[in-house]
């Protein structure tokens, strides 16, 4: 497309001026002329924790590297998918960030769009890199490796665990779950916790619920433990209507039918219902503690998802890949490395008053969470779940992740509302996904 005309078009279409595309950018390895030591970092501004965390990292980096300037660009988005879309708009408007925060779901996206500069060469020639990668679980490195290109180091990550309200368990006289519990145990536990507490003839406390607006803390742990996945191992084909996926979705549908789970709701609503005791269990990563602890809510603990035909930890990380548009790739690498330094990783551990909202990627730091007293009591489980248990690899994240996730969620809505059968819904889902999940 003619560049000047595209500028005009983009002004109109996305309120941005499109200049030459990212792929046409210079790949000059040297730092910018004149000794420019500035970096621009784009991050997902999902809330106050993102702002303070990124500012602290940038400030610490500038303090440790005098003469450098780090400019932070917060980008909004209701989820990772919309954040990527907004970053793409930003890039199309002519911004040239050096680094951008991405999650595992975005690794394929940035790689497929030729946005990212792989760090393989830095990992080989940087003496300090080996010590860092040795302290990071292999799964977290594999999760950001696309076609042998390591996209980024992971600074933090989340796994899927079951949160349970300890007060509700006590009140109901139910024993806390053990790590080896099964789907049948889970179902029995959830049933015991479901109650009509005010005796008006209607359930007002449910055993379990899951997020309706994301698949990561929604269906994925169940699909993984049924031995399935939503894509093939090479993430080149959809596998949404396999018997394993069918089994997982049927199990969840049955929880609603049995009245043990309410209709699925968005994650932010789940947090509220969990804190006020209307929901006894739900699934998520470490991020809920960033909401619970500052609000003074500590009556919770975590456990692995129950075992189905198998057990696999579902996890996803985040990192700061270096973009091809970076004028200072070497400095950008230093910044990326700094995001996984001990100093910064300690922030992800946090304190009981100011907890981190993801699990530090460095094992040595993550294992201090329970020692510094950040709830929950069972927080060693966070890192153990990736070190000591099998993991779901790959996470189903095709390059068109946003379209993929919205398609999956759209069909699940119909299934969980009882408007289509599980088999019929998954078949329709598979039909649509076949043109979205490709290589």
């Amino acid at each position, binding site marked *: 497309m003619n560049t000047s005309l595209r500028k005009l078009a983009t002004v109109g279409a996305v309120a941005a001026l499109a200049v030459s595309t*990212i792929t046409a950018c210079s790949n000059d390895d040297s730092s910018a002329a004149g000794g420019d030591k500035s970096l621009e970092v784009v991050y997902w501004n999902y809330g106050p924790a993102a702002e303070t965390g990124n500012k602290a990292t940038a400030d610490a980096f500038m303090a440790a590297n005098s003469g450098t300037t780090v400019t932070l660009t917060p980008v909004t988005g209701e989820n990772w998918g919309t954040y990527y879309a907004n970053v793409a708009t930003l890039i199309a408007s002519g911004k040239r960030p050096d680094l951008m925060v991405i999650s595992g779901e975005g690794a394929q996206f940035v790689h497929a769009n030729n946005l990212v500069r792989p760090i393989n060469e830095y990992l080989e020639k940087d003496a300090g890199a080996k010590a860092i990668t040795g302290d990071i679980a292999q799964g977290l490195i594999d999760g950001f490796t696309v076609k042998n290109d390591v996209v980024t180091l992971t600074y933090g990550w989340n796994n899927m665990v079951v949160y349970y309200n300890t007060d509700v368990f006590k009140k109901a006289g139910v024993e806390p779950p053990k790590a080896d519990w099964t789907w049948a145990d889970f179902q029995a536990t959830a049933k015991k916790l479901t109650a009509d507490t005010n005796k008006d003839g209607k359930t007002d406390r449910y055993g379990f619920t899951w997020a309706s607006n994301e698949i990561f803390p929604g269906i994925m742990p169940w699909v993984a433990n049924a031995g399935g996945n939503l894509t093939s191992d090479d993430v080149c084909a959809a596998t949404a209507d396999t018997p394993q996926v069918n089994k997982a979705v049927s199990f969840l549908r049955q929880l609603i039918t049995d009245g043990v789970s309410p209709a699925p709701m968005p994650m932010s609503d789940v947090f509220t219902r969990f804190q006020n005791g209307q929901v006894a269990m739900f699934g998520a990563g470490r991020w809920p503690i960033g909401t619970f602890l500052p609000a003074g809510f500590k009556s919770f603990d975590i456990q692995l998802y129950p075992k189905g035909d198998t057990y696999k930890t579902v996890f996803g990380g985040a990192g700061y890949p270096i973009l091809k548009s970076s004028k200072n790739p070497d400095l950008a690498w230093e910044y990326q490395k700094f995001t996984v330094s001990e100093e910064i990783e300690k922030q992800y551990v946090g304190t009981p008053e100011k907890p981190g909202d993801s699990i530090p990627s460095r094992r040595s730091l993550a294992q201090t969470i329970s020692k510094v007293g950040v709830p929950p009591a069972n927080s060693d489980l966070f890192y153990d779940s990736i070190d000591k248990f099998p993991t779901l690899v790959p996470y189903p994240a095709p390059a068109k992740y*946003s379209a993929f996730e919205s398609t999956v969620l759209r069909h699940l809505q*119909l299934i969980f509302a009882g408007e289509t059968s599980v088999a019929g819904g998954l078949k329709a889902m598979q039909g649509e996904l076949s043109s979205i999940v490709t290589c």
Partner: protein
Amino acid sequence: MTERQAPPAPGRGASPQRPARKDGLAAFAFLSPSIVTFVIFVLAPAAGVLYLSFYDWNLLSDGTFVGLANFERLFTDERLLRVYGSTVYMALAILAVNVVLGLLLAVLLETRMPRWLRGVFRLSFLFPFVISAAAVALIWRFLLNKDLGLVNYLLGTLGVDRIDWLGSSVWAPISIIIVNSWKTIGFSILVYIAGLQAIPHQLKEAAIVDGANAWTRFWRVTFPLLSPTIFFLVVINTINSFQIFAEPRVLTQGGPGDASRTIVEYLYDRAFGDFDLGYASAIGITFMLVLIVLTAIQFRFSRRWTFYE
């Protein structure tokens, strides 16, 4: 005896008439901020979208000229037809609520209430209008939750079974209609009240003297004189109700399936979910044409029922 000068024409003063061209320039000068704003924020974006609709472009790589291919896709997109259907259903319902119920409430507020109560109602109807649509939708999402929401709890006390407000194909669009109408009806009421207050009292009094009852007075005096206001609200509400985005996005994410999805939300997903800017632009252009045609039809037929003094 000296001849007396004729008095100046009313409203003109004694100054000589300024040339029409000067008046035109003055008018243009006053209008120029609006014109510039319109060009920058309406015309240029529309031109940009039209341009993009002929390209296959994902925001990040070089676009490819594809001619009319994006427009051809419109005819084979089954979901688009479904989404148009749900958009028309919700838009017409919202339009009806705003125009009919808005008029009814405005008349009640103007005629049947003590002054203090009128103030309370005006404020309560207008209050949702000034809150952001997303914030309104978030509050309603909590209230309308099937199993733990306040609305179903209150209905339950009346013996009504739990309604799946946000999760069923029947109720999700109705929820959008209720929430959007609740938010926007205040504006319609306010405009109606202004229209009602502009009707000369002498006409109503003359009708009373002639023995017309309240019903006859409404249909023979109030309605004809209010018809320009009604027409204005029909046009504005048609455009606004076809363009709702925040409510389905926050309340139902357009679901279940596409039951409560609107064209604007669908277009957004194609552009920033699939990174398919060209196709999204083609949807946008055709949707703009649909709204232009609808508005033109409304103007054409308005001559039959609007009355200007």
